[in-house]
């Protein structure tokens, strides 16, 4: 569940509120930075479609799943494609609600942010994270991520029902793309890390927009547990809001 949901959440990110702070000289506003970064993770207002391949390795066992993902703004609909036994399974992220539906099931089941802490490998913790909407951001410094200069941001939870109280987030200075995130527990310890690659591009309103191509999530407290999400064949598409209505999904 969780890698997919992570992708859904990232795709559904919206601009964050900015916090007045003593930002480094020349630092852009936190809100603008997050808005740009969110856009490159799939938060396109008109819609985007891609194939998502999820590869999770936990305690030496690797599992693979493939989904067709359609996203629009803060909403996303992912349909299981492979393996065959998961075909037709649907995850719907509608605003702050996450729904899961298996073929033949009478009704979908809602999975709230806190409840995503349960189950698979706790990657669901990350899944419940929506940077822009649920966190207040501020730029606190400059660092290199790999070879790339980045603004270091600190995000503070705006809502009590999110899984992580704080997130450290590094955004490329030049490209305004999220490069790395650390998800912290209430005690300030790093619980998970995520890194992002942007080899994809989509054309929106005649402009090429970089789009995330790979996200790698590592358990900081579980050595060797890693989930890789690969975004294939992205294309900008208009999706009607009704596509993300749970009652329509059930029908």
């Amino acid at each position: 569940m969780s890698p997919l949901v992570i992708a859904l959440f990232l795709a559904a990110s919206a601009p964050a509120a900015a916090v007045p702070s003593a930002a480094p000289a020349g630092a852009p506003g936190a809100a603008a930075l997050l808005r740009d970064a969110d856009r490159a993770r799939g938060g396109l207002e008109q819609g985007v479609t891609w194939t998502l391949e999820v590869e999770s390795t936990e305690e030496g066992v690797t599992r693979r799943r493939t989904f067709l993902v359609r996203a629009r703004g803060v909403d996303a609909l992912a349909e299981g494609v492979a393996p065959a036994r998961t075909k037709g399974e649907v995850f719907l992220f509608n605003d702050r609600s996450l729904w899961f539906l298996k073929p033949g099931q009478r009704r979908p089941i809602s999975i709230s942010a806190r409840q995503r802490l349960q189950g698979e490998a706790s990657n669901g913790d990350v899944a419940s994270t929506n940077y822009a909407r649920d966190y207040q951001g501020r730029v606190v410094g400059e660092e290199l991520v790999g070879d790339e200069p980045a603004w270091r941001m600190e995000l503070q939870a705006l809502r009590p029902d999110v899984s992580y109280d704080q997130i450290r987030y590094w955004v490329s200075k030049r490209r305004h793309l999220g490069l790395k995130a650390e998800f912290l527990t209430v005690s300030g310890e790093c619980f998970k890390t995520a890194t992002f690659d942007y080899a994809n591009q989509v054309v929106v309103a005649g402009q090429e927009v970089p789009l995330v191509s790979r996200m790698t999530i590592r358990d900081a407290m579980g050595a060797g547990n890693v989930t890789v999400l690969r975004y294939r064949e992205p294309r900008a598409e208009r999706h009607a809001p009704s596509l993300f209505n749970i009652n329509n999904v059930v029908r």
Partner: protein
Amino acid sequence: MTGAWRLAWRGLARNRRRNLTTGLAIAVGYAGLVVLGGYANRIEHLIRTSTVYLQHGGHLAIYREHGLGRASARPAAYALAPEEQRAIAAILAADPRVEFWGRYLQGSGLAGNGCTSRPFQALGVELAAERRILEHVQVKRWAPELGRPLAGLALPDVQGVEGAVALSAGLAAGLRKRPSAAAPAALAPPLDCGAPDADAQVAADSGLQLAGPTFDGSLSATDAQLVAIFRGATPEEDQSSLVAELATLQRLYDTDRVTSVAVYLRDAADAPAVARDLAGRLAAAGLRTSVYRYDDPAVNPYYVGTVGFVGALVGFIGLLVAVVATLSVLNAMTLAVIERTREVGTLRSIGFTRRQVLALFLREAAALAALGTLAGLALGLAAVVAVNRANVRFAAPGFADRIQLLLQPTATQCLAIAALILPLTLVATWIAVRRRLRTGVAELLTTSTA
């Protein structure tokens, strides 16, 4: 009756008021111990019955090695595979001390009503074993009110319902669902969860959805139907417990494994021996398993802790009661021997030895203790009957619902308490009398006791 006993009875009759008071002290003390023992006996059996049968722990629980602590986090690695289940069943079937056994699957997940969902802790049960539990003589005797659902039908009584589940009262209330054995419509009407009548829409049918992680880590879901509501064993469990047929949970978690096998014995006293034998046979069969007894704090810390606490409490109060009764006897006998100093001197002067005089007083004390104990038994049993008939209900620690205050002393307890009272009375008498008997005959005859 021998002459010595006649003398003893005569001595007792000499100061009736004091001896009546002393006898009453013994009687009240004995009655109090009978009542206390009845309470301890009831609580121990109630908790044991709940732990062993109603919570499906069994007298013995067989897990895969390290499965007790690790199966919830890594079920695929620490649950019992089908071939292990078959081997265990063959070993259990060969032991005549085993009454029956059941396979159980534990898991967690979410139960949804179409609008909202709640986390659950699930237990998958075999209906045949469940039926035997609900009809078991121990359950009917010690926990009849806990064995049946608060509403709806017990799982074994439900026929032909796919995905039948029972929810704890708190969980059912959170989902706003009511039980029904009637199958809901195959196609569920859409819900408007924001509508004012959303609760009514949700409650319109007993269908619900379960979601949980499969053994290989994927998310799975299945439809279910609420057929019963039960009271959770503890207030915490009452908020999140779900019981379903084993096959339903195995379908949800996409597995054919089980977490444990619970073994129910004909006689709980056999648990240590059967556990020892079973562990040896399982190891000899090449199975890497762990066998836990019901009184092992590793599996049942609540049972062990509560029974230990109640035992210590009752033991302490019982000790206080026994000390008070003993001091009462000591006091009475001290006064009696002082008052009867000249009588003691006379007996000594006509040839009674110190030992014979001491025996005389001990006989008096024994007679007094016997009478007091008999009266106490009658008093205690009357109190037991009165309390049980009064149907007093109270919130027992660890139970989600108020339970009836029942006192159920055993014959063994009554005999044991009597066996405690008698020697204490005799020791108190011996202490009171022996110093006076060391006094010389002449001094005894001339001592003023007015």
